[in-house]
């Protein structure tokens, strides 16, 4: 099985508006895919369609080689953190997650153990039996994230998992999710491109219900073909740069004061480019740092 999720030509309409317009997206097994797109692009609709919440107009979904979502086949193997969905307010985190574990087919002891461990992981060990009603927004969000990982599912869909968390919890949750890379298939939608860049190894850009681009993060940001120089000022003489490296394309971003150098990795290495460019650059401006690859934000904005 190459792909954990194969969704082909999905069409979903809300009245006259097409939320998914022949969207095709395949998620490799054990990948951690970041789903990026503007509001209303179709990210949430795609996740809800894959999880069987929505009925599609057309298109096919193949989930873990078991066809479209079917609870008798996929229960316990796929979980989702849905957006804008409240947990039962009278429930208690431990008892609720244990109940979910039981529904997934875990034995009672295993469900309770798994629920308790997950709540400890999201720093809610001291609120195991507090009513959901009494928890803050961030705490509820952490319970919602924890419920996704009960029973170690194969595929986890997370819709805006880090929104509403305080900075310390965001950092902890990023680390918690990153630890799962290569062990479970995760799809994360977020507007925070830095989070995606830190956690994911695959990225998909979605817009107007269609997939614009899907690639590994390395390909997307051009780690093997781009060097980015953070400079103190814009180089005063581009002529000397192009004369030294005629096959390299230079782009300066005034907002970040960075110079992107795109080269063909088959003809040159990053070290060779850097060795030639630095002596030419230094007389013109100060060089603060050099990075491989552009930022995801730059690539995303370029693709719009």
């Amino acid at each position, binding site marked *: 099985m190459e792909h954990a999720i194969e969704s082909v030509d999905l069409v979903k309409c809300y009245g006259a508006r097409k939320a998914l317009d022949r969207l095709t997206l395949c998620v490799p097994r054990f990948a951690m895919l970041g789903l990026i797109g503007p509001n209303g692009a179709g990210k949430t609709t795609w996740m809800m369609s894959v999880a069987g919440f929505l009925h599609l107009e057309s298109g096919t979904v193949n989930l873990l080689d078991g066809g479209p979502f079917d*609870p008798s086949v996929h229960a316990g193997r796929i979980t*989702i953190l849905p957006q804008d969905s409240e947990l039962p307010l009278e429930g208690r985190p431990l008892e609720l997650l244990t109940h979910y574990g039981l529904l997934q087919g875990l034995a009672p002891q295993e469900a309770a153990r798994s629920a308790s461990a997950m709540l400890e992981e999201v720093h809610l060990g001291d609120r195991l039996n507090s009513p959901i009603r009494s928890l803050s927004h961030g705490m509820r969000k952490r319970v919602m994230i924890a419920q996704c990982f009960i029973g170690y599912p194969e595929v986890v869909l997370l819709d805006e998992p880090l929104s509403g968390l305080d900075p310390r919890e965001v950092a902890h949750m990023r680390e918690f999710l990153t630890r799962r890379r290569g062990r479970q298939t995760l799809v994360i939608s977020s507007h925070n491109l830095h989070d995606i860049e830190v956690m994911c190894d695959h990225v998909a850009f979605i817009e107007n219900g269609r997939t614009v681009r899907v690639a590994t993060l390395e390909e997307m940001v051009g780690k093997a073909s781009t060097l980015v120089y953070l400079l103190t000022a814009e180089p005063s003489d581009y002529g000397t740069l192009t004369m030294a490296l005629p096959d390299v394309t230079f782009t300066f971003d005034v907002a970040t004061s960075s110079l992107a150098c795109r080269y063909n990795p088959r003809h040159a290495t990053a070290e060779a480019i850097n060795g030639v460019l630095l002596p030419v650059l230094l007389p013109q401006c100060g060089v603060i740092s050099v990075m491989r690859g552009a930022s995801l934000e730059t690539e995303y904005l370029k693709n719009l």
Partner: protein
Amino acid sequence: MSGLRQMWRVACYEWFDALRSRRALVVLLLYLAAAVCNMHWSINLLHKLENELATALQLPQSERTGVVSTTLWKSKPFQRMMQQMTQNDLVLKDITGKHPVELIYAWFAFFYTPLLVVLVAGNRIAEDLGSGAVRYVIFRTSRASWSLGKFVGQTLMIGLALLLSGCGAYAIAKFRLAGSGTPDLFLNMVQWSGRAWIYSIPYLGLAMGLSHFTRSVSKATVMGIIAITACFVLSILIRHFSAETGWRSFLPYLGELLPDGHKMYLWRNAAAPLITGSVYLTTLGFCYLLTGYAFFRKRDV
């Protein structure tokens, strides 16, 4: 895991969760209070009637209620009145001689159960659809298990409410009415709670079936109240307009689709009509629920 076991897990959690729900708890306590007050006032009325009867018969007036009840119960005018109320000779024959406390409670339970059902359970599904809580469950179990589990959980909740109201009414009768503290009467009261519970099933199916159609709690409650009122009015109209010949002869068949069409089976003593009525009413409940589920199965959540 089998669908049936999952359904049972959903049902147990639903029951547990409903017991904690403030709204359900308030309605349950109000129902218990209503049962107790109804019994208290009915005994007051009975006491007044007995005193008037004693005065008319020139008997000594009693301090305690219930002493003259047996005489009252056996009197022809009272039996004629009961016949008018039940409109069923078989039922009249079966309830004749029963303790007045039983009948007072039975009348209360049967009359108010539909309202209890709508207020406690009528919006539980709409509530989960509206808040999105259903989205945490239906990728773990089938929609059918969830729907049916919610229904069974609420059935248990209503059963508990009726049992408690029966116990409350018995406690009042025990202290207020002469010779009412017998274990037999207690068991009979529990039995009437059970009969009212069976009677609640079609209303539960109706209210919860309708609850599948909306995400709004208030809309679900209003829809439930309209539905039980419609059932009540339709039953009266069918009874009134039914005839032996013509198109009106089909009206009784229409009545079979309503809970009231089978209610009187539950007032009988013999096992056969009791079982028949229970089967009919339970089937009706499931049919009503299935109508809502058929819509929910295809809807986006």
